């Protein structure tokens, strides 16, 4: 925990989020599903609404003023996202729909240009389907070997065989923070290990970028994928951030307008980075909203954000253990310095779905299911868990509400 960080003024922050004022069955909503998608502050909603009301036009296409304003706002948002993750230049920041598309872009473009039968891609047992599906599709098409970094019993990557796994591998693709366990993986040593084997490193930073100050140059990552909607931004936009030389050498992914320099009947040449990978009308207003979300987070300070979440996670882990003891299973590290604020748990003989349903009755929103991480669920030996996850607007009182609702749920199903 950073002792210099001023605690967030959460009560003030909450007033910026209209959805948190929602009442469910007479009770103020307790939104604990930010790992699935976060709520959005007024400033983001206003930035998007203003764009549509005042200067909306297609980008990069018109000579008239509204088109210039729209293009400038769109590209300014790209610059904000670029800086927020510490990338070197806007040329390295490709807008996509979501982190999933970012990873697919790498698998289709870089993967199909570089990987051949017999090559290996290394993943881990704690990956989200977004970082499994694209590689399984490629593996099947190209006869590529997938290898898996196993997990230790204390919910961390088991790196004891990493060197062996990386032998002959072309890519290591791994999550920076597990959406199920909360586990934070130390990326720089993974980058060094991958590069020592001439493999590239892809980081699924979907759960990391929203919660921890990110510096992808410091990580020395080659590809980084993340989504706006988990970091106070709108749905419909995400980014692939990648080293310029790599993007330059990659063939295009989607073909069409904007990514093209010239087209003749017998072929086309591609536009410069990053537009080479942005075919068709982009998510213009979504980018602008994302920029506003980044302004909001930057104003809070990412050190302060992380600090708040560490504190809240510690409080929640303590409260759950104290109240339920051995009756609750918590899947994830206990040490809050190596984990984020997503807490997966299970009660014996009560299914996560049923827990969630009873919680909903009290306005407490948690997620139940496999969290798009079925290989991990199989490794944990459970079909589903409940997951509560925190963000800048959550409070200790909300953790108390969660605990109280769980007490009620347990009582209901134990009768």
């Amino acid at each position, binding site marked *: 925990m950073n002792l210099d960080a001023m605690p967030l003024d959460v009560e003030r922050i909450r007033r910026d989020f209209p959805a948190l004022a929602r009442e469910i*069955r007479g009770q103020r909503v307790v939104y604990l599903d930010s790992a699935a998608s976060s709520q959005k502050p007024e400033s983001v909603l206003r930035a998007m609404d203003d764009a549509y009301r005042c200067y909306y036009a297609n980008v990069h296409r018109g000579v008239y003023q509204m088109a210039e304003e729209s293009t400038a706002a769109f590209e300014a948002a790209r610059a904000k996202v670029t800086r927020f993750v510490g990338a070197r230049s806007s040329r390295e920041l490709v807008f996509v729909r979501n982190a999933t598309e970012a990873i697919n872009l790498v698998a289709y473009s870089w993967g199909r240009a570089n990987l051949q039968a017999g090559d290996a891609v290394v993943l881990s047992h704690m990956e989200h389907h977004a970082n499994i599906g694209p590689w399984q599709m490629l593996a099947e098409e190209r006869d590529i070997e997938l290898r898996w970094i196993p997990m230790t019993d204390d919910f961390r990557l088991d790196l004891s065989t990493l060197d062996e796994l990386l032998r002959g591998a072309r890519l290591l693709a791994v999550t920076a923070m597990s959406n199920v366990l909360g586990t934070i993986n130390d990326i720089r040593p993974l980058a060094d290990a991958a590069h020592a084997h001439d493999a590239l490193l892809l980081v699924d930073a979907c759960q990391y970028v929203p919660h921890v100050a990110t510096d992808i140059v410091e990580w020395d990552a080659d590809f980084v994928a993340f989504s706006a909607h988990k970091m106070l931004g709108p749905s419909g936009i995400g980014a692939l951030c990648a080293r310029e030389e790599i993007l330059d050498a990659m063939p295009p992914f989607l073909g069409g307008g904007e990514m093209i320099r010239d087209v003749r009947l017998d072929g086309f040449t591609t536009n410069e980075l990053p537009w080479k990978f942005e075919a068709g009308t982009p998510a213009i207003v979504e980018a602008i909203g994302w920029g506003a979300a980044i302004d909001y987070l930057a104003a809070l300070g990412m050190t302060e954000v992380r600090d708040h979440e560490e504190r809240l996670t510690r409080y929640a882990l303590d409260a759950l253990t104290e109240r339920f003891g051995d009756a609750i299973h918590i899947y994830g590290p206990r040490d809050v310095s190596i984990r984020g604020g997503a807490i997966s748990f299970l009660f014996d003989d009560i*299914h996560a779905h*049923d827990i969630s349903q009873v919680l909903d*009755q009290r306005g407490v929103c948690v997620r139940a299911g496999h969290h798009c991480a079925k290989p991990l*669920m199989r490794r944990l030996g459970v*079909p*589903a868990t409940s997951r509560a996850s925190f963000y800048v607007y959550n409070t200790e009182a909300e953790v108390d509400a969660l605990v109280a609702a769980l007490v009620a749920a347990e009582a209901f199903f134990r009768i």
Partner: protein
Amino acid sequence: MSSNLEDLYREVILDHYRSPRNRGELPVPPAHRSEGFNPLCGDEVTVFLDVDPDTAIVRDIKIQGQGCSISQASTSMMSAAVKGQTVDEARRLIRAFKALMSIHETRLEGEGDGSDLAADLEGVRLGDLEALQGVVKFPVRIKCATLSWNTLQQGLDEIAAAGE
């Protein structure tokens, strides 16, 4: 607890959930085995069916798998309802049960007005199964309730195809 929640978790449902009927396996063959998944929540069910090839009667049915109370209870009730019935009767039950469940789903998709669903329900006695009607008010849970029925249907289809 609000009445709403009790619409969903009727006593008979909790009873089937706590004491599920027909749990276990059957040897395959002669029994037939079919598997179902709910991609939303990861629930899995395996249905073992022993259908008499001559009389087309479901002589025995056994169930394995994991799931929430709704899926477990629905599975248990399904097994009790079809055991000893003919394949035709089982199919009629499947249709009727889906009609009971899909009223809401259909409205959501804006396809049809539910009038043919009424026909599917007509003349079929659902008994205990009607306790599951409360699920319709909780759209995401409908798939929990229908999982085992879809798996049963798939099993019957596969048996029919194999017998041809």
